[in-house]
């Protein structure tokens, strides 16, 4: 059976140091969770899936189609959207201009708070508001697959809950891949597929049941 | 290992051989020798401090001019450090280009330097010294500067300089104040470059605005690229550039610029600059 997104034997070597070591993963519809300690290669893996980095070896398949050599903007057209971490967004653009890169009305539907600050420049926003813009842009664009890197950073509890609800809803329609430290337990209970990375190696990948033990031992 | 020994022997032969040859070859060898000192000074700045300067002709040319205007001004040449050092506020990535642009700016400015009715595009007459004598002095200075740099970079003090190169914040975290070490490194490099400039002026007995031209500002970079960043092979590299351009320029005008173009384009594919900036 063809999975939605597959990573086959992905390895990455930078400065003669192995950052990822033959990682095999296949993600499907629903919520998928990647967990692991800092510096274990989670963000690198996400960047490879989004096309920002090219793996030293290995293949990436979307719906059975080889997209390893495609660049990030081509992957966006094919349906892979990524929300980067650390509040990275174009700061000189206003919120409204930022949301012109996706379905604007849908974005305001998801996050009505943004309507009030739509004319502000992203530079003048607080951390939580910036994170909301990033997530709004990612969610409000039609895609097959969504990659979220630390989506809960700097957000209020209320909005966190809303995002978790949103994740649950959207998870039925498309595939979502979440990398997170915060709210690990909640995301864990929602997710269908779990993988755990340490030092660039895959410790566990598969159903939730088997992963619980490993995850508990390491993080909770 | 064998190759490096062979290179050292070759350099020594190149240093000694011109003593027995005619005046013309000696002049050529002496000019290559000053440029070798120039390259060594640049290499110290690039390797131990991590600042690749594409405007090293600033200390070189300014002190040559000072020497030509009045030989006693020679003692001010180490102060040229303070022409180059302020450019380091641009950061390691922009410094090469900032210094290059500044040197080209000086190149144009030098056309307008007039002192006691002399200067301008013609340049100044520098006091000329006996060629044999100056050749011996140059050889001595080259060997001394190599020894000096070897000695400094292997000492505990040199270790601190290298630490500042690698990570200034980490250096502060273990109690090393980065500024004096940076200034010291620049001062060593600029002083050696100014010595090279003074020797250059003394050998030809003449200084023109050409000392600020891209030929000199890019010379050490190109020589080091040919020598792959090693001290002895870079000296060999500077000899190569000088001799090749001298012998081939009757056929191709200013042949060294062709070497430069090739070396720069190749270097942008192979070498890495600002080596200390390493993202984790």
């Amino acid at each position, binding site marked *: 059976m063809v999975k939605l997104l597959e990573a086959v034997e992905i390895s990455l070597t930078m*400065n*003669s*140091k192995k950052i990822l070591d033959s990682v095999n993963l296949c993600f499907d519809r629903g919520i998928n969770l990647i967990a692991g*300690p*800092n*510096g*274990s290669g989670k963000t690198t893996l996400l960047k490879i899936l989004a096309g920002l980095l090219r793996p030293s070896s290995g293949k990436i398949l979307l719906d059975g189609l080889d997209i390893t050599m495609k660049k990030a903007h081509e992957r966006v057209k094919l349906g892979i959207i990524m929300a980067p971490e650390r509040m990275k967004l174009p700061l000189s653009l206003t919120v409204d201009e930022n949301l012109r890169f996706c379905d604007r009305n849908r974005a305001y539907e998801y996050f009505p708070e943004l309507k009030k600050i739509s004319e502000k420049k992203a530079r*003048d*926003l*607080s*951390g939580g508001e910036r994170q909301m813009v990033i997530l709004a842009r990612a969610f409000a664009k039609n895609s097959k697959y969504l990659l979220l890197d*630390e989506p809960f*950073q*700097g957000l209020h509890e209320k909005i966190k809950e809303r995002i978790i609800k949103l994740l649950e809803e959207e998870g039925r329609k498309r595939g979502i891949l979440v990398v997170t*430290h*915060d709210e690990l337990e909640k995301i864990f209970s929602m997710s269908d597929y779990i993988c755990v990375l*340490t*030092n660039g190696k895959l410790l566990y990948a598969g159903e939730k049941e088997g992963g619980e033990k490993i995850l508990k031992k390491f*993080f909770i | 290992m064998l190759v490096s020994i062979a290179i050292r022997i070759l350099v020594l032969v190149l240093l000694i051989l011109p003593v027995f040859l005619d005046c013309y070859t000696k002049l050529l060898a002496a000019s290559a020798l000053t440029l070798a000192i120039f390259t060594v000074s640049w290499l110290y700045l690039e390797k131990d401090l991590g600042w690749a300067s594409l405007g090293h002709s600033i200390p070189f040319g300014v002190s040559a001019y000072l020497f030509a205007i009045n030989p006693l001004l020679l003692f001010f040449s180490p102060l040229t450090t303070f022409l180059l050092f302020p450019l380091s506020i641009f950061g390691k990535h922009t410094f090469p280009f900032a210094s290059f642009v500044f040197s080209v700016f000086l190149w144009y400015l030098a056309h307008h330097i007039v002192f006691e009715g002399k200067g301008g595009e013609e340049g100044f007459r520098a006091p000329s010294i006996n060629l044999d004598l100056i050749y011996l002095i140059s050889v001595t200075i080259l060997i001394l500067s190599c020894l000096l740099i070897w000695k400094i970079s292997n000492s505990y003090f040199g*270790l*601190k300089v*290298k*630490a500042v*190169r*690698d*990570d200034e*914040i*980490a*250096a*502060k*975290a*273990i*109690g*090393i*104040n980065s500024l004096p070490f940076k200034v010291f490194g620049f001062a060593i490099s600029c002083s050696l470059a100014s010595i090279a400039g003074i020797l250059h002026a003394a050998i030809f007995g003449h200084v023109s605005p050409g000392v600020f031209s891209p030929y000199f500002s890019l010379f050490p970079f190109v020589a080091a690229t040919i020598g792959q960043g090693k001290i002895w092979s870079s000296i060999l590299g500077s000899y190569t550039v000088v001799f090749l351009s001298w012998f081939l320029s009757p056929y191709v005008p200013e042949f060294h610029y062709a070497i430069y173009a090739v070396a720069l384009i190749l270097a942008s594919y192979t070498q890495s600059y600002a*080596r*200390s900036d*390493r993202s*984790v």
Partner: protein
Amino acid sequence: MLEVIEVSKMFGRNVVLKNVTFSLKNGILGIYGANGSGKTTLLKIISGFEKPSCGRVFFNGREITNKAPQEIVKLGVAMAFQIPRVFWNLTVHENVLLAARETDYTAEICKELNLEDVLFKKAKEISQGKVKLLQLAMCFALKPKLALLDEPFASLDAENVEVVLEFLKKRGSEISMIITAHRTKILKTIASQMLEIRGGKIVGSS
């Protein structure tokens, strides 16, 4: 020993620390909280890498609020960064030697922290876990009176966690420490005092 009085820090409009006040006499202080709660900023303010927007910091009765980091180090406060900052083009031995200033002490610390097998390799060639150990070694090679350790256990595997834990327990009797972590389990085993920080404010202590 260390007193932090009403320290606040703002980056533009973002308030990272809000009126943080605590003091430390001796022993090991553990600070825990989620990512982005301001732990790292607090340590950076104490060690001088960041200037507080307002508030003061005293060490052994002397004010160190606006001193440069290299001066604070000389007073005896050493910092180990979360994302290791070491000299990547120097060997492990040279790295530690720069901090320790004497060869014997360097060898001793490297032995204790299990760095002996990579002693003459360049820092950029060794594994991430070893770099983390190296960062710790450089911090303690300075012979500090107070060590600030930012997430010393993060990105370490189980074996190295043991090594670090052993080392910290041994040194804990002579040197005061402030250790941050976002998980409390390991921290509880060594810390004599705990603070919880959330959204830039201290919300609990035990």
